């Protein structure tokens, strides 16, 4: 019989992380010794989360996939040319390539994004900010939530609606906020790693996460009461 306490619970997580690290290093060593097919394991592991990050910047699936292909090729070259140093975390290194490649792609193709939910400069935007927010909420109303009443409880419907609201929020906020939220919540990077990846001061990273979450809370509470949310616990 196993007895769990906090220390015992924390240990396996660390072991899993170090095992993942060892696994990545082993794959990298294989690639460097000439086994190019080993790179497929890295592709399979990172492609979806990396595409999510790329989509936050480019807001278009086709462009995001093109840019991601380029990022993977650059990563492969960096590994074979032994530019990647083992002392740095591979995911941080890789996501920096993904981020830079997507930004370059954006600049090269001069993409334009409309209907972005502004978080910055509320005083300058004034009523326009409210207008954009209203527009954002209209989109949420029009969305097809794909939940049919008979089999799903009211609670789950509300939960699904909230999730959809968060997904839409992430799709529509400006890139500088969406990128940081994605790197933190989806790509599992720490504040320090995000600061390193985006070459920003750590204070800016924390501030942007705080502001974005604050705005999301505001959007949620415009549509639902605190009691509604508390009921979901």
């Amino acid at each position, binding site marked *: 019989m196993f007895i769990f306490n906090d220390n015992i619970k924390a240990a396996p997580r660390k072991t899993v992380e170090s095992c993942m690290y060892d696994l990545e290093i082993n794959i990298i060593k294989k690639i460097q010794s000439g086994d190019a097919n080993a*790179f497929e394991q890295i592709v399979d592991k990172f492609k979806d989360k990396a595409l999510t990050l790329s989509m936050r910047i480019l807001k278009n699936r086709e462009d995001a996939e093109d840019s991601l292909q380029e990022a993977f090729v*650059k990563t492969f070259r960096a590994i074979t040319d032994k530019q990647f140093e083992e002392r740095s975390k591979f995911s941080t290194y890789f996501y920096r390539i993904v981020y830079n490649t997507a930004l370059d792609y954006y600049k090269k193709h001069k993409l334009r994004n409309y209907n972005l939910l502004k978080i910055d400069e509320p005083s300058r935007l004034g009523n326009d900010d409210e207008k954009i927010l209203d527009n954002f909420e209209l989109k949420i109303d029009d969305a097809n939530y794909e939940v049919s009443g008979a089999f799903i409880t009211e609670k789950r419907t509300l939960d699904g609606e909230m999730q959809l609201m968060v997904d839409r929020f992430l799709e529509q906020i400006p890139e500088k906020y969406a990128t940081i939220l994605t790197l933190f919540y*989806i790509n599992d990077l720490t504040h320090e790693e995000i600061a390193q990846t985006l070459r920003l001061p750590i204070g800016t990273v924390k501030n942007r996460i705080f502001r974005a979450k604050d705005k999301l809370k505001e959007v949620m509470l415009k549509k639902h009461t605190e009691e509604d949310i508390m009921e979901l616990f």
Partner: protein
Amino acid sequence: MANTNRKIEEFIDGKLRSSRIERTSDNFSALLMKRIAVEHKSALEESKSDRLVKYAIGSFSMLIIGFTLVLGFISGTTSSAGSRQNGIDIGPAMETSNNYLEHFLSFIQSVFVGALNFFGVTFSSRTITIVLLIALVAAVFLIGERFVLRGKLRSSGVGIK
């Protein structure tokens, strides 16, 4: 109130963590691995040609160094009484090679002066030497860039920002 706020924060954290992860298209990995295979092949070929160029440059450098050493050795063994007569004796072999070098340089200078005269421009030999030196530095830089810097820049995708 504080408890409610904390719970809402937790709720938002949870929702952000479970937000939608985009899925790549079905043929994404297959297409990418084809590109990687091509990249791997060309990298192997490139490293082969790089090695060849390195050997060629290395052999040439060794030849020059060897030539200089041999000349130095010959001039050392052949210098004798002449040094006392004329002050400094650099030896007949070294003298011959210096003469060749001198002829070669004066030939380049005369071609350069002729070309400039053709356009109605005249410079002192000192200016021409400086211009030739700058041209030499530029040529060395361009060759260096071709063989060393270009390869490095091509493979870098990290330091863009």
